[in-house]
């Protein structure tokens, strides 16, 4: 009942915003549905958009579960893309190209998150600030890379060379762009769940998240857990960037991300930080992202999706409050 009231309230708010922007809420909803599920291509596109959101969402969720406010998935995603295209354009034996590019991406994301971990543990800098600021640095890093060290050999456009075919992820659904990265993301969601639920290290992460002092008293190394949580979180987002390179764009351009790393925060929170629920919420936001392209036909800018994200989060926050109060 409370949930229904919250959802209804959220929808009303959203309709008000759309009306204020002089468009029809029903037309926007129809356009969204058409863009997300209207055809084989749009359905494939929904799954395609789900992939980076699921991985970055898992990364953000893992960090938040450990009470680490890593808001830097965007930057970690970008570093993953940079590392992946760099590794993928080296002279490597063909069968190694794809695994090396993906691993490099995960490493890039982990390093970027590791910077925030080092600043927090060694210098007491709040990770909220450092990860946010690192996002902006990462954006400029990409801009520089595609005009400098990673620019295509012909030096015509600000973009990198293309990844050779052996470095690319194979297609999953013939006739569409959907690639195997989607399956990899699904598998990793299950792995993340198993890690949190079944391993000692995952238990330590949750314990530190529930209370660092109590965890330390129980003999858990808070510093070690913090390092590991940051690195895993960053690696997942970095892998998302690498998969985007190896499965979708095949080259690095500027700007590179569509804000996946920011949407990831909504994805993780809506899933209540549970890895398995993240599959569902990533699908939801993936459908919204895919549908956004059609929304313009209904007379609203596609950035209305960000408003939708905000309204969704406010709805979740209000619902969690009502639930707590009801107890």
């Amino acid at each position, binding site marked *: 009942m409370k949930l229904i009231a919250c959802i209804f309230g959220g929808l009303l708010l959203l309709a008000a915003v759309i009306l204020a922007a002089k468009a029809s809420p029903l037309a926007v909803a129809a356009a969204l549905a058409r863009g997300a599920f209207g055809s084989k291509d749009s359905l494939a596109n929904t799954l395609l958009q789900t992939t980076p959101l699921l991985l970055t969402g898992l990364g953000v969720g893992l960090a938040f579960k450990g009470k680490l406010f890593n808001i830097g998935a965007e930057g970690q995603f970008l570093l993953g893309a940079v590392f992946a295209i760099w590794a993928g354009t080296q002279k490597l034996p063909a069968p190694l190209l794809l695994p090396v590019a993906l691993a490099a991406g995960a490493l890039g994301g982990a390093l970027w998150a590791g910077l925030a971990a080092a600043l927090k543990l060694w210098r007491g800098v709040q990770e909220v600030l450092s990860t*946010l600021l690192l996002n902006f640095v990462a954006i400029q890093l990409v801009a520089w890379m595609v005009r400098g060290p990673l620019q295509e050999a012909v030096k015509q456009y600000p973009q990198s060379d293309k990844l050779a075919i052996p470095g690319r992820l194979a297609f999953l659904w013939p006739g569409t762009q959907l690639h195997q990265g989607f399956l990899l993301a699904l598998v990793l969601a299950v792995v993340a769940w198993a890690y949190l639920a079944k391993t000692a290290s995952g238990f330590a992460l949750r314990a530190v998240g529930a209370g660092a002092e109590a965890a330390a008293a129980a003999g858990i190394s808070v510093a070690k857990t913090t390092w590991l949580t940051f690195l895993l979180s960053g690696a997942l987002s970095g892998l998302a960037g690498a998969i985007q390179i190896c499965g979708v764009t095949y080259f690095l351009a500027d700007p590179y991300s569509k804000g996946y790393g920011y949407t990831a925060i909504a994805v993780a929170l809506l899933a209540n930080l549970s890895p398995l629920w993240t599959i569902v919420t990533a699908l939801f936001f993936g459908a919204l992202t895919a549908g956004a392209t059609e929304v313009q036909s209904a007379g609203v800018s596609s950035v209305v999706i960000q408003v939708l994200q905000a309204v969704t989060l406010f709805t979740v926050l209000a619902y969690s409050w009502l639930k707590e109060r009801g107890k």
Partner: protein
Amino acid sequence: MIPFLLQTLTFATPVLLAALGAVFAERAGVVNIGLEGLLLVGALVAVLVSAATGQPYLGVLVAALVAAALAGVFAVFAIGMKRDQVIVGTTINFLALGGTGVFYRAIKSTGEVKTLPVLFGDGSTAIHGVTLLGLLLIPLAQWLLYRTRLGVMVRSAGEKPQAVAAAGVFVNRLRTVTILATGALCGIGGAALSIGIGNTFTEEMTSGRGFIALAVVVFGRWNPLGVLTAALLFAAADVWQTRLQADGKLHIPYPIFLALPYVLTLLALAIRGAKVKPPAHLGEPFEQG
């Protein structure tokens, strides 16, 4: 040298105003990641009102009111419902980023925007009224925070909320006031950006200034004078990078220049690091007994 200083002052204004509000909110125990969004909303509203009425100062005023209203939404969720402040702030940023985009694109053209009148200087070194306001607010804030009863209450609300509550102060009401003030100041700061430094609104034009303001608060040790110093330092770095870039003598790619303010902010935080101590109960919800 003088033009450099004047330009630094102008550039520092949006960050300074946002940070000044955040000093009070954080001293009272509230951390608001939503500064970025509040600045952005202020920037858009100021442009729209100024273009529609031809009155730039009316634009500043309405920007302050609208941003304060958005800060009110933050207060409802973060204080009223006691939800995590970082999460609520992030949500405010989503709303502002998407909302300003939707409205700006729906309007498409704003017509001619009247910018804030120049008090002295010209071109990129022009000083306008809002910059002056920012400078005047520093001693006022310093006095409020350290010389008045309200200041004592605000500072205690972040350090020992239980004790303040026991003395009969409504901690959450006090915190809400600081949040609304932060919103108003961010609105004015956003206006300083869109109709002070520039003459139009562009999407994402705040480009991280709200986050830099948060860092400035830490670097300035949660006090107004410190915040002024920090805001000027970062603005100087910003002006320096634009000038070096325009100069073209140094052959450094421009993205590296653009990254400079963020890198310097990170470095500054790292150097200041462990030496600064935030208010003891920063970010924690408070249950009035």
